[in-house]
Structure formats: structure tokens, C-alpha cells
């Protein structure tokens, strides 16, 4: 069994719906068949039991009429030769009985038997009791018989019947025998009707169960099926456009939908970040390329008339090339250090933080002076950090580059050491709290254009975060009043770690 979907044929055997439906159907049908079989068996037994009881009651009634004149007989049956209506039925040809004395002589027989004998012989059992058996009747009809082995009561003088108080019976062995043979055709009809009724009922029940199971399973699994169809229709290019509707789902599926929606959000954000990064990177590279191309094409079409014009043109080309170089270098560095799992990769050695900070700041002093910036370095002389020195140096370079580029003119900045960390603070300029969430995003700049800070393409703080992750320190940013603060925090170094000796330390 299969059904078509947008993605081709789906085989029911491979689906939850198919498996559940098949198993439910099999189980309920088997249970139904077993139940009906059990009901038939019980009812059949009961019907037969009732028939047998009725037969036995009639046989007992007949045996109670058999009287012995003495302990040695003879036996008499008071209704011998008389019409017995209970052995004739308007709609059937009647039942039969025959009674034998302990010696095996026939004492009485039913009129329906005439002068004949019952075709079945009584058993040779000598104990008192009953025996039920099937045997064909003299007229060929199917019959059900009971043989009763009994000890007749001895009659009282003058009454012909024994009273219960003084009744005496003939010896129990050998017993007298009575065989009563009844037509079992009606029993067979009854049993047949019962069987057919139960069979029809079973088939109807099976059909109804099948329809019900199929409907209930299909309806019950509709939310799951709908979710599967929604998932199949997801477009990787437009993840933001789709979310699974959680409110309409059953309790079992809601957590799944929630997790899926969370994953879609994260995936969509990741894709959006990647697209934005690619777009921004392309944008940052295209501009210097456009500059180089336009300058070159114009110079080729209208060659510079003077040496000064020529030189000016080449200087512009060189500046564009350098700009492109800085973008490419930053991108390559980012690619080298970036790890999605955020794991630390680089092992380090003990370094004196104050020395590294001093080395990093030295290359920015000129730029700071040009902008009137004053930097105060206040770090403990013996503060140690276990880290890769070149990466730590690059990290600090980027932070100081940020300070010299973006701190307000003629302002003060500071780099202060504290327990297991340091903070670099400078005037925040136009930065706001809302900007903090984006400042480490690749290519983000407060001012989206490139007007006056060609060397800064917006990757500096992105690289700071990657460097920090690579050497296992925590970097965070905050705005406190009019100050922008970059914080570096690390775990304490081993007390036994020796303090490294560097040129700066010797100079001090």
C-alpha cells in the first residue's frame, strides 16, 4: 500500500502510519477472531449442556417411573404401551427410549420405537451413572443419546410407588439401563445459527475495526504528517520564512517543534551572518579594486601630462593597494584563528603582561601623539599570563589601534592591570550601549563609510575575540559613562611558574 506525495511514492511499510495501522489491525482482528471463537465455544458448550441437562432430566423422570416388584424384579413401567406426548412433537418425528432390566431384557420402549429396538446397544458398565453419546436415530436422523444406569426402587405393597421415607432399591449392580435418544437436529440448527451469527458479527466487526483503525491512526498521526510535510518543504535559502506552529501541535510533538524552531533560528542566523560576512568582505575588497582600476584606466586614456601628476597617480594607486592588502591580511588572520567550536588551540608560556603591553603600545605612540591622545600604562611589574606571546601581542595591537583610531581627539586613555586581567579604557566618542552587541561583528564600524580611516575595515575587534579565544582568555567590552572599556580576564598562573626575564624587565 502506498500513496503519492510531492517527493514521489511513499510506501506505507516504511512509515509510522503504515506500521501502526498494520499492527493495530492485526492485533484487533486476531483479538476479535479469538473473542468470537471463545464466545462460540462457550455458547456451544452451554447450549449442549442445556440440551444434555434436559435430556438427563427426561431420562431421570423415566427411570423414576420404573419400579421393581422385589429385589430380584421383575421391573414394570407404568406407561408402557401408552401415548407419551413428550415423545412426540408436532414438528418432528419424536424421540425414543428403551429400558432394560439388569439381565438385559427390555422392560419398556417408546411407542415411537414400535416393536423395534434402539440401534445402539447399552454399555456393559455395571456402575450407576450416565453416559452421553451421539448416535443415529432409527429413522436415520442425527441423534443424541443418554444412557442411565440405575437401580429401580422397589414398590410398596398396594401403591406401586415407593415413598421417599421407606423406599428400597434393587441392588446397584448390575443396574437397570435406560437409553433415551433425542433428535439433535434442532440442536444442530441452533449451533449453526449461533456460528453464522458470530461469524457475520466477526466479519462486520473486522470491517468496522479496519475502517476505525485506519481513520483513527491517520487522524491521530495527522500532526506528525503535517510536520513532516512542512519539514520537507523547508527552503535552505529562506529559513527565516518558516517556523513550525507550536500551538496546534499535540504535547508529544510540541517539544520537537520548539527544538526545530530554535535550530532553524540558529541556522538562519548563521546563514545570515555568513551572507553578511561574504557581502561585507566583497564590499571591502571591491572598493580598493575599483580605485585601482579607475585610476589606471583614466591614466591610460589620458596619460598624466606632468611628472607630478604621474607621481600623485601612483601614490593613490599605492594607497589603494595597501588598503586591499590590509583587508586581505585581516581576512587571512581571521580564517587562520577562527574556530566555530570556540576551543582553545594554542598553548603558551609564561609572559610578563607589562612587557607585552609596553611593546604593543610602542608602535602606536606616534599615531596617538598626532591625535593628542595620552595613554597611561599602569600594570603590576610581576603580572604573569601563560599565553602565546605573538598572539597576545597582536591582540593588544588591535585594541590599541582601536584606541588611537576612534578615541576622541586630545583625550586620555589608560591600560590598567588588575587581578588576573587588565582593562583598556578610552573615550567612547559616539558609541552607545546598543553598539556593544555589534562591535565584534566582522566589518562593523560605527560609521559605515570609509571616509577617513582607510586602515580600519571593521575586523580589528573581531580578530581580538579570535585571538583571545585562541589563547584562552576572556575578552569583553562595556561602556561606563563616557568611557569605552575593553576587559581581558584570565585564570591565575601557577604559583610555581617562574617569572620570565625580558629586555624590558632588565631595562627596568
Amino acid at each position, binding site marked *: 500500500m502506498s500513496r503519492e506525495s510531492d517527493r514521489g511514492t511513499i510506501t506505507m511499510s516504511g512509515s509510522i502510519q503504515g506500521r501502526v495501522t498494520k499492527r493495530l489491525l492485526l492485533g484487533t482482528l486476531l483479538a476479535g477472531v479469538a473473542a468470537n471463537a471463545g464466545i462460540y465455544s462457550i455458547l456451544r458448550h452451554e447450549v449442549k449442556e442445556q440440551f444434555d441437562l434436559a435430556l438427563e432430566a427426561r431420562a431421570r423422570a423415566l427411570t423414576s417411573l420404573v419400579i421393581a416388584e422385589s429385589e430380584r424384579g421383575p421391573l414394570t413401567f407404568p406407561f408402557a404401551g401408552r401415548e407419551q406426548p413428550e415423545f412426540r412433537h408436532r414438528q418432528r418425528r419424536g424421540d425414543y427410549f428403551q429400558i432394560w432390566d439388569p439381565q438385559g431384557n427390555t422392560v419398556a420402549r417408546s411407542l415411537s420405537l414400535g416393536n423395534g429396538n434402539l440401534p445402539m446397544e447399552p454399555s456393559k458398565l455395571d456402575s450407576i451413572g450416565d453416559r452421553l453419546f451421539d448416535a443415529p436415530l432409527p429413522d436415520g436422523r442425527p441423534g443424541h443419546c443418554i444412557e442411565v444406569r440405575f437401580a429401580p426402587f422397589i414398590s410398596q405393597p398396594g401403591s406401586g410407588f415407593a415413598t421417599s421415607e421407606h423406599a428400597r432399591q434393587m441392588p446397584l449392580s448390575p443396574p437397570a439401563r435406560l437409553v433415551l435418544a433425542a433428535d439433535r437436529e434442532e440442536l444442530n440448527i441452533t449451533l449453526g445459527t449461533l456460528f453464522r451469527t458470530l461469524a457475520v458479527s466477526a466479519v462486520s466487526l473486522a470491517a468496522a475495526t479496519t475502517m476505525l483503525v485506519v481513520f483513527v491512526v491517520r487522524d491521530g498521526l495527522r500532526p506528525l504528517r503535517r510536520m513532516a510535510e512542512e519539514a520537507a518543504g523547508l527552503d535552505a535559502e529562506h529559513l527565516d520564512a518558516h517556523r513550525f506552529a507550536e500551538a496546534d501541535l499535540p504535547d508529544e510533538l510540541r517539544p520537537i517543534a520548539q527544538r526545530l524552531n530554535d535550530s532553524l533560528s540558529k541556522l538562519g542566523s548563521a546563514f545570515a551572518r555568513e551572507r553578511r560576512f561574504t557581502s561585507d568582505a566583497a564590499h571591502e575588497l571591491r572598493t580598493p579594486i*575599483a580605485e585601482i582600476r579607475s585610476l589606471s584606466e583614466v591614466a591610460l586614456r589620458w596619460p598624466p601630462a606632468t611628472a607630478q601628476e604621474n607621481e600623485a597617480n601612483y601614490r593613490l594607486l599605492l594607497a589603494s593597494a595597501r588598503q586591499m592588502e590590509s583587508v586581505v591580511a585581516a581576512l587571512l588572520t581571521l580564517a587562520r584563528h577562527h574556530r566555530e567550536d570556540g576551543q582553545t588551540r594554542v598553548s603558551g608560556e609564561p609572559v610578563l603582561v607589562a612587557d607585552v603591553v609596553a611593546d604593543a603600545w610602542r608602535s602606536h605612540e606616534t599615531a596617538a601623539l598626532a591625535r593628542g591622545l595620552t595613554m597611561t600604562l599602569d600594570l603590576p611589574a610581576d603580572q604573569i599570563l601563560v599565553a602565546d606571546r605573538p598572539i597576545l601581542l597582536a591582540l593588544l595591537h588591535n585594541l590599541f589601534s582601536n584606541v588611537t583610531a576612534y578615541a576622541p581627539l586630545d583625550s586620555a586613555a589608560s591600560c590598567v592591570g588588575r587581578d588576573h586581567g587588565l582593562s583598556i579604557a578610552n573615550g567612547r566618542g559616539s558609541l552607545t550601549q546598543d553598539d556593544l552587541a555589534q562591535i565584534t561583528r566582522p566589518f562593523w564600524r560605527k560609521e*559605515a563609510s*570609509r571616509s577617513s580611516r582607510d586602515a580600519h575595515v571593521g575586523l580589528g575587534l573581531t580578530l581580538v575575540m579570535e585571538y583571545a579565544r585562541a589563547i584562552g582568555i576572556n575578552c569583553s567590552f562595556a561602556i561606563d559613562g563616557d568611557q569605552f572599556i575593553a576587559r581581558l580576564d584570565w585564570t591565575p598562573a601557577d604559583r610555581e611558574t617562574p617569572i620570565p626575564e625580558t629586555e624590558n624587565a632588565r631595562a627596568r
Partner: protein
Amino acid sequence: MRVLLVEDSVRLATAITTGFHKAGHVIEAVGDGATGLRLLLNGADDFDVAILDIMLPEMDGLTLLERLRAAGKQTHVLLLTAKDTVDDRVRGLRAGADDYLIKPFAFEELLARAEALARRRYGVKNPKLRIGGGEDGATPLLIDTAARTVTRCTDDLKIDLSPREYALLEYLAVRAGTVVSRTEIETNLYDSQAEPMSNVVDAAVYSLRKRIDAPGRPSVIHTRRGMGYVIEVPAGAGIGSSPAVRS
């Protein structure tokens, strides 16, 4: 053609302005969106084309464009940007841009697109313009605005013109049938370094006539005393069209 360039990359702006100057056009360059919008709102009619970068300080190019269109200004705008996705292009065009060029670009293409937009300002789509050859016997000329060449039809002589002379002839030709004032010529063909009240326009027209007019024939450029200059529309041209520009 008079162009406004709004581009914050100094080096790129230098390259573009140099090239447009060399091609005989007047171009003014500013580095931020706010200044660009002010110039366009106050003097939009002076500019044939505005070339806008999108990533600009103060105000980005798309916002500038939207405000320009909201103010009812119909200046032709060419967007110049490094953003190349379909969404970016669609956004720019729907904001009201007439054209979109992605960096890096061929300078010749930028120049050609800007010139095409400038022609559109005067309802001229055909890059080949025919002037003269009317009943007055003025010299018939074929101006190829794409190749920036001028050919005298009587003898198929290619006439060598300086960029400024060509720009003047093309400017008058696209406005054939309209008297163009000296002020308009100064504004569209000469940058702000031209002194006011100078006779630079008259001198330029005189020089141009000497180049293009065949000996013994009336000039294709007519003087309207006190008003300006005009290139006449040849007889038989339809009303409401630019008959002089059909080749």
C-alpha cells in the same frame, strides 16, 4: 554634461572626476550624503546626472535618493556601489535609481552610462544626431555621441574637436530647437572656476563654428541676440519630438 558625484572614497572620487573632466564634462564631487542631498535639492536642475555611492557618511545613498524623489526631483541617478546582490540592486532601482553599476567597473562604462542618462534628460535615445542640412544650407553634421565623433556629411570629413568643443556641440544638438542661454552653457560645460561675466561661451561658440561649418555655408549654430544660441530643427521634423537627433 554636468554631473554630481557623491563618493566618500577620496581616491575613487579623484579618478572619476579626473576622467570626466578629461572627457569634457563638468563634474562636482562631495564626500557625504547630507551635502550631496543639499546640492541636489537646491540645484537639482543644474545637474544632468547624479552618481551616488551607497555607503556614505552622514546619509547613505539610498536614503539620499529616496528623499530626492520624495521632494519631486527627477534628476537622473546612477548608483555606484560594491553591493552586488539582486536584493541590493532591486532595492536601489525601486528607490528611484535610473541605473546601477557595481564596483569595480570599467571607467568607460561609467562614462557611457552617465552620458546615456544625460541624453535621456532631453528625450534623446538615439546616440547618433543629425543637425544642419536644412533649407538655409547649413552644413549637415552627424554627431556620434557614443564614439564622440563629428562627421561632416557633405564630404564625410571627420572633424577633430577638443573635448570642450565637442561637449558644447553635443549640448546644443540635444537641445536642438531650444534657445540655450549663455548661463546654461556655462553651468553645464564649465566648472565653478569660470569667471562670471566672461565671454568664454562666446569664444567657445566662435571657435566651434570655425571647426564645423563648411566654407561658404551658413553656420549650423544660430545666435539669438540677448538670449543665447540655438541649433535649428530641420524643416519636416515632427512637433513634440527631437527631430534633429534622428539619424
